[in-house]
């Protein structure tokens, strides 16, 4: 052909391939980060009901009995 046709196809297909590969790699990296963040969230969050725990004010669901003072009673209190 004449070089222009080949160049056009290379640019179009090359750009789409590069963009697709970038998306897949970024998605995979995000999934891995998300997994580590989820594990960190599970590790960092103290036991439910303790003063340092994540409670209703963070928009998260809490379970277990509520004490008279409005705070959750520790699940493993002596």
């Amino acid at each position: 052909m004449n070089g222009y046709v080949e160049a056009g196809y290379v640019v179009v297909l090359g750009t789409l391939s590069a963009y697709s590969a970038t998306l897949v790699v970024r998605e995979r990296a995000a999934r891995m980060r998300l997994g580590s963040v989820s594990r960190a969230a599970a590790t960092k969050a103290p036991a439910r009901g303790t003063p340092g725990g994540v409670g209703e004010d963070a928009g998260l669901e809490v379970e277990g009995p509520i004490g008279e003072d409005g705070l959750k009673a520790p699940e493993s209190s002596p």
Partner: protein
Amino acid sequence: MSAPRGKTQLGTSALALRVLGVVAVAGVVATVWLGLFVTPPDEFMGNLVRLLYVHPPMAWVAFLAFGVASLSSVLYLWPRTRAEHFDRLAGASAEVGLVFTGLTLVSGSIWGRPTWGAWWVWDPLLTTTALLFVLYLGYVALRRVPGEFHVRARRSAIAALIAFVDVPVVYFSVEWWRSLHQAPTVLNPTTHKTYVHGSMAWTLLLGFVSFTLVYIWLVAHRYRLAEMQDREDDEGLEVALAERRAEASV
């Protein structure tokens, strides 16, 4: 006050997406094979006509992408249908549309150099398409400006609707102004006739279908990426809150 953000869902089927990707790639390969080796050269353009099996599909997909982005933006702005996924879909579709608009400009420029003798002319169609590219580049940049989710989504939706005004201007520019660019050959808005036939028409049609499937595949992946990034932000915030509370309790 904006509505609280709900939990995100990663609902797109991985298998369906893989099948879609395989079909899209097969379609593109078939288009390239037919376009380069099977269809005959054009009577006037010679082999340069082979570029037109990819150039109009690029433009079509760009229009489709910006149409989807605008529709999603309207649905986000409408209080009854407001949902996070419409904002994500708008962002994903606009970004993919931006890529296709860039490819429309570049492939058209490569075709224009041997046909018109110049890489670029300030033709109404080319100029308004370049403007479209810049408008959506601004939209994508605007989405990256930090802010509360719904504030950012609302201003992005308004920007998407403003940018979309240029789409019909691009399409009808060859009718409204004296243009070097040829009028549409597939669905001419004035004559309502098709000026491409036989294997050329089928190859062009296959190009439209294949690159539309590529668009859907890309948007699905871009959407999932945005969804994961949002979830990551949410869970990162929860970790930070837990750390602060743990520090305070010591």
